[in-house]
């Protein structure tokens, strides 16, 4: 069980850093937004990983069942909020990318910067 917990954390690491690499190193604006959403999903995975309790079930209290071990409901509430906020920022970012394409004709970062320097 120790190794499985470590494997969970390492998988979160790799996905987080992959998304982060896409944000800082790729030139295409839509690729950056996809990397941002991967990064957010990795953080959600970390929170939900921390809420699991050994032998627990989903926190839904059935009538008449006592002495049940439940998993922690609090990180789930935080992540529900975070997922919706994530899609809000993604939608707004995509709208801005569409306007950049209409204004500059391209969505590659270095071409946009070149056009700005030439003006």
């Amino acid at each position, binding site marked *: *069980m120790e190794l*499985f*917990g470590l494997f*969970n*954390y390492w998988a979160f*690491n*790799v996905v987080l*850093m*992959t*998304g982060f*690499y*896409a944000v800082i*190193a*790729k*030139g*295409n604006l*839509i*690729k950056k937004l*996809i*990397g941002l*959403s*991967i990064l957010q*999903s990795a953080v*959600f*995975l970390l929170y*939900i990983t*921390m*809420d*699991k*309790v050994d032998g*627990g079930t989903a*926190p*839904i*209290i059935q009538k008449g069942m006592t002495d049940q071990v*439940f998993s*922690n*409901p*609090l*990180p*789930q*509430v935080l*992540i*529900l*909020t975070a*997922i*919706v*906020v994530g*899609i*809000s920022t*993604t*939608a*707004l970012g*995509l*709208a*801005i*990318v*569409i306007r950049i*394409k*209409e204004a500059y004709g391209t969505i*590659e970062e270095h071409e946009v910067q070149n056009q700005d320097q030439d003006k």
Partner: protein
Amino acid sequence: MVVLFAVFLLTLLVFTAVAIVRTDNLFVAVMLTGIFSLLMAANFFVLDAADVALTEAAIGAGITTVLFLGALALTAEHEKSVSTVRWLSMGVVIVTTLILIYATFEKPRLGDPQAPVHQHVAPWYLEQTPELIDIPNVVTAILGSFRGYDTLGELNVILTACIGVLFILGGRRGKHLPSDGKVLPSTAHGLRRHLIPKVVGLLAIPFIVLFGLYIQFHGEYGPGGGFQAGAIVASGIILYALLEGEEKALQAVPRPVLMGMVIGGAILYGAVGIAGIVLGGNFLDYSVLADNPVKGQQLGILIIELGVGITVCGALLSIFHAFATRESV
């Protein structure tokens, strides 16, 4: 056995993330993002988070893919220029990964009941929910009642995003057919020549909307709630817009109705809060809404979840229409 399954899902997740970053074709990247969201939802379910899995599947795999595809159609960039590996970025990423791996050795063991996160507030919520609110789904109880302020803030976040997208993309109003001989965008006609998807899709839409309503009203008894229900109903109507074309979809649910939904849901939530003040309690205090405090809590949660569902559905539909009615350059 479940451990093996979870390890398999996590490995697939890592491979999909690396494939998304490495591919050049943006269309392939968006499709792989949909698969990534589905694997995330399966992972969440293995880790006992049923509500979050449903939300991730509905919003991540459904709505996000549609929005990305709409943006791809407008920017029309199917290929991206090949860039070499940037060594400084790769170095920073590798160093940060090693530091984080070193930090994971200090973390509490996965599933340990004595971990700090399970100690302070969470057992109180689990004990007090049957007494104070008496609904089975503890996550909905915390979301709606114990942490109701956060949900009000989040509702306003998605309202602000909808307003922002409408400002930036500024959709056309009403039935404005261009009369100067310009060609209508191809989204205006829907799938004219594809009969089978049209028939099957139109058959499925009432069931999708019905399922969305089921999730909305059963949010207190099982996984569900306003966010998931709003996303599912919005995806049903987006399916109608894809099959029949934008004009018919805007006749079915016109723009004033969408605006009314977006604003009405948020006002409904705030009205419940102010009703709490008017009836003698605090802001967002549901105990005073009915004779019995427990019944008042249940009534309050039901009304605010309805407000959340209406606003999320209207906002996602408005954002989709703003993307779909924009003429491509």
